[in-house]
C-alpha cells in the first residue's frame, strides 16, 4: 500500500464521514419528516461507501439493495401512510430535548473514551480480496443454521406485518359480504370514526 492510496482512502473516508454525519444530523433535526426520510438516503449511501472503503464490496452492495431499495422505501411509504407532516410539531417538549441531547453527548463520550485508549490487536495488512465467494461458502457452511433461521425470521416478519396491517381491514371486508344488516353496520362504523 502506497502513501497515495492511503491518502486517497483518507480523502474518501472524510468525504463519506462528512456525508454520513451531515445527513444523519439532518435526519434527526429536520422538521419535515419526509425530508428526514430522504436525508436518510444519503446516510445509508455513505455507510455503503464506508463498507466499500473497508473492502467489503458485497456488504456494501447489499446495504444499497436492502437498506435503500427496501427499508428506506418502506419508511417513506410509512411516512406517507401515516403523515400529518405539516401539522404535527416533530420535536418533543424542551425538557425531553435537553435530556436527549445530554444523553447523546454522554453516549458519545463513553464510546469515545472506551475506544480511544485501547490498544487494538491488529493482524497487520490484509489485502482486499473478493468477498462474494467466501461469504457464499460460509453462509452455506459454517453459518448454515443462522442463515436458515434468518430466512424463517423474514417469513415470520412478513406474515406478522401483513397480519398487523390487515387485522382491521378484515372486519370491513366481512361486513361487505352482502348480508342484509350490512349497510346499517357500515353506517354505525362511519359514525364512530367521525
Amino acid at each position, binding site marked *: 500500500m502506497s502513501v497515495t492510496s492511503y491518502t486517497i482512502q483518507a480523502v474518501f473516508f472524510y468525504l463519506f464521514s462528512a456525508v454520513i454525519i451531515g445527513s444523519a444530523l439532518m435526519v434527526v433535526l429536520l422538521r419535515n419528516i419526509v425530508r428526514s426520510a430522504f436525508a436518510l438516503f444519503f446516510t445509508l449511501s455513505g455507510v455503503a461507501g464506508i463498507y466499500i472503503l473497508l473492502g467489503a464490496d458485497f456488504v456494501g452492495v447489499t446495504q444499497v439493495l436492502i437498506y435503500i431499495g427496501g427499508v428506506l422505501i418502506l419508511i417513506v411509504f410509512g411516512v406517507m401512510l401515516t403523515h400529518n407532516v405539516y401539522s404535527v410539531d416533530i420535536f418533543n417538549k424542551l425538557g*425531553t430535548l435537553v435530556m436527549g441531547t445530554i*444523553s447523546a453527548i*454522554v*453516549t458519545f463520550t*463513553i464510546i469515545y473514551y*472506551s475506544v480511544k485508549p485501547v490498544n487494538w490487536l491488529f493482524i497487520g495488512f490484509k489485502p482486499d480480496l473478493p468477498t462474494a465467494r467466501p461469504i457464499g461458502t460460509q453462509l452455506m457452511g459454517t453459518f448454515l443454521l443462522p442463515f436458515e433461521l434468518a430466512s424463517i425470521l423474514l417469513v415470520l416478519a412478513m406474515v406478522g406485518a401483513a397480519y398487523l396491517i390487515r387485522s382491521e381491514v378484515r372486519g370491513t371486508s366481512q361486513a361487505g359480504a352482502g348480508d342484509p344488516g350490512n349497510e346499517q353496520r357500515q353506517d354505525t362504523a362511519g359514525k364512530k370514526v367521525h
Partner: protein
Amino acid sequence: MIEHMIWMIPVLPLTGAIINLLIGKRLPRRVVDSIAVGSISLSFVLAVTAYFHLISLPADQRQFTDTVYTWIGLGSFQVNLAFLIDPLSAVMILIVSGVGSVIHLYSVGYMHGDKRYSRYFAFLNLFAFAMLLLVLSSSILLMFVGWEGVGLCSYLLIGFWFEKIENARAGMKAFVVNRIGDFGFIAGFLLLFTTLGVKTGIWSLDFSVLKSNIALVPVAVLTATGIMLFVGATGKSAQIPLYVWLPDAMAGPTPVSALIHAATMVTAGVYMIARMNFLYVLAPDALRVIAIVGALTAFFAATIGLVQNDIKKVLAYSTVSQLGYMFIGVGVGAFSAGIFHLMTHAFFKALLFLGSGSVIHAMSGEQDIRKMGGLAKKLPVTTATFIIATLAITGVPGFAGFFSKDDILYNAYVSPYGGTFIWLLGVLGAVLTAFYMTRLVLLTFYGKPRMDHHTAEHIHESPKTMTVPLLILAVLSAAGGYIGMPEVFGVHNVFAQFLAPVFNSGFAVPEGSHTLEWTLMGVSVLAAFSGIGGAYYFYAVNTELPARMAQSFRTAYAWLLNKYYVDEFYLKYIVGGVLKLNTILSLFDARIIDGAVNGAAKLGKKLSDFDGAFDRIVVDGAVNAVGDGVVSAGGVLRKIQTGLVQNYLIFAILGLALLLSFVLL
C-alpha cells in the same frame, strides 16, 4: 402367505359392518346384502385356505400366530394384537364363517321387507367379526374383547325390533345376565394373571405362555379360576343358573337365533373351556363342577322343552339342553368330544332354527305350534330338511348327532370325572330330546291343519335364498358326523386326531372295552327310539292322551309349563333382594352418614364465624394498614411512570452511562 392374512378373516366382516353402518342407508338393498354376504363369504374362503394350510403341516407343528401389532406394551407385560391358528380355532372359524355365511344368505330372503335392512346386516357382520376375534385371539384379553363384542351384538340383535317393549326387555335381560357371567370371567382371568405374575414374575395373558407355565400355579387357585371362568361360560352358554336369557332371546329375528343363539355365540363358553383345557386338567374339581352343571342343564332344560308351545321356545330349550351335553363332554375331560358335538350341533340346530324361520315365514309370523299342523305338503323342502335335523338331534344312527352325542355319553361313562349318574342324566335327556323333537315335528308338519283360513291361504314355500341354506345345512347335518366316527367302527377318529395336538395336556380319558362301547351305544339308540316312539304314540296315535296327562298331573304340568318358576324366583328373591338391600343402604346413607356430615358442617360453621370475626378485625386491619401505606407511597412514585417510552429510554441510557462510567474510570 396365508399366515399373514389371518387378520383379514375378522377384519373383512368388520369392514362390511362399518360400510353398512355408515352409508348403508343410502345404498340399494342389493348392494347392502352383497357387501354383508360377500365379506363373510370371503372370510370363509380365507378360513378354508388357512385350514388347508394347517393340515399341510406336520401334526405337531399345526399352529401359527399372525401378530398385527403390539396393543399394550408395559415393560415386560405385552399384549399383542395377534391371531392364533391351531386345529381348535381352525375348526371354530370354519364353523363360524361357514354357518355364518349360510345364515347371512338366508337372511337376505328372510329380512327382505325390513325397514332397518342395512342396520341388520351391519350388526350381523359385526357379530361375525366379534365371534371370529373371540376364537382367533391368542390371549385372554383379546378373547375377552370378542367375548364382550358378541354380547353387545347379541343385545343389539335380540332387541332389533325394539318397537315392541318385550323385545327390548329381552335384549336387556340377555345383556344383564351375560354381564353377571362376565364378572366371573374377568375375576377368573385376573386371578390367574396376578397369581402367576406374583408367584413367578411372568406377567402374561397369552395362551401359549400361560400353557407352559400353568404348572407353577397352586391347584387351589386353578380350581377357583376354573370355576370363575366357568361362571362366565354359564352366562354366555346359558347353563344353570344363568340360562334364563336364552329362551327370551328368541325375540330377535330367526336367523339371529340360528346364528347367535344356537350355532356360534352360545358355544363360546364351550370353546373357552376347551381353549383353557391346560388349566382344567390340573383342576379336576372344577371339571367335576362343569360336568355336573352340564348334566343337570341337559336334563332340566329338556323337561321344560316337553311342554312348550312356541316353536322357537322349544328349540331354545333344546339348545340349552344340547349345550349341557357339550359341557358334559368338556367337563369329563373329553374336550374333542365336546367340540365335536359343538360342530354337529351348529349344523343341525342352525338348520332347525332356519327351518322354523321358514315355517314362521310361511305362517305369516305365527309361532304357536298348536295353531299349525299339516304343513308337510305345502312346505316340502322345509319339512324334509327339518326332519333330517330332527333325526340328527335325536341321535338316530347315521346322522351327525348320533356320533357326537354317543361320544360324549361314552366318555361320561368311562371318565373318572363322570360316572353313572352323569351318564344316566344324559341318557334320560336324550330320551326327552327325542320325545319333544318328535312332538314338534308331528304337531307342526303333520296332523290336521289348525290355523285359521286366512293364514292357510298364504302358506307357501320360502324363496331360493332361504331354501338353499336349508339344503346345505341338511347335507352337513346328515353327513357331518362321519368325520368323528369312533374307533369301534374300525376307523380312526379323524376329528379327535386332528384336535389332539391342542388337548395333549397329559390327560386322557381311559379306554373302555369295545363291548362296553357297543353296549352304551345300544342304550343311546334305544333311548332315542323310545323317545320317538313315545311321542309318536302321544301325538299321532292317541292324540287325546297329552291333554289328559296334563289334566291328571296338573301341578307337574304347570311347573314345567312355567319353566319351574325360575324367572319368577329370580325376580322375587334376587332382584327383589337387591332392591331391598338398596333401600336399607340408602336409609343408612340418609340417617347416619348424612347426619354425621351435617353435624360436622354445623360445627365448622360455628368455628368459622368466630374465625371470621378475628379475620375482619385483626388480620384485615393489618393488611389494610399495609395497603394504605403502599398506595400513598405509590401515589408519589407514579409520577415517574409517564407512559412515554422515550422517558424510559432516557433513564435507561443515563443509568447505563452511570454503570459504564464506574467501569471506565
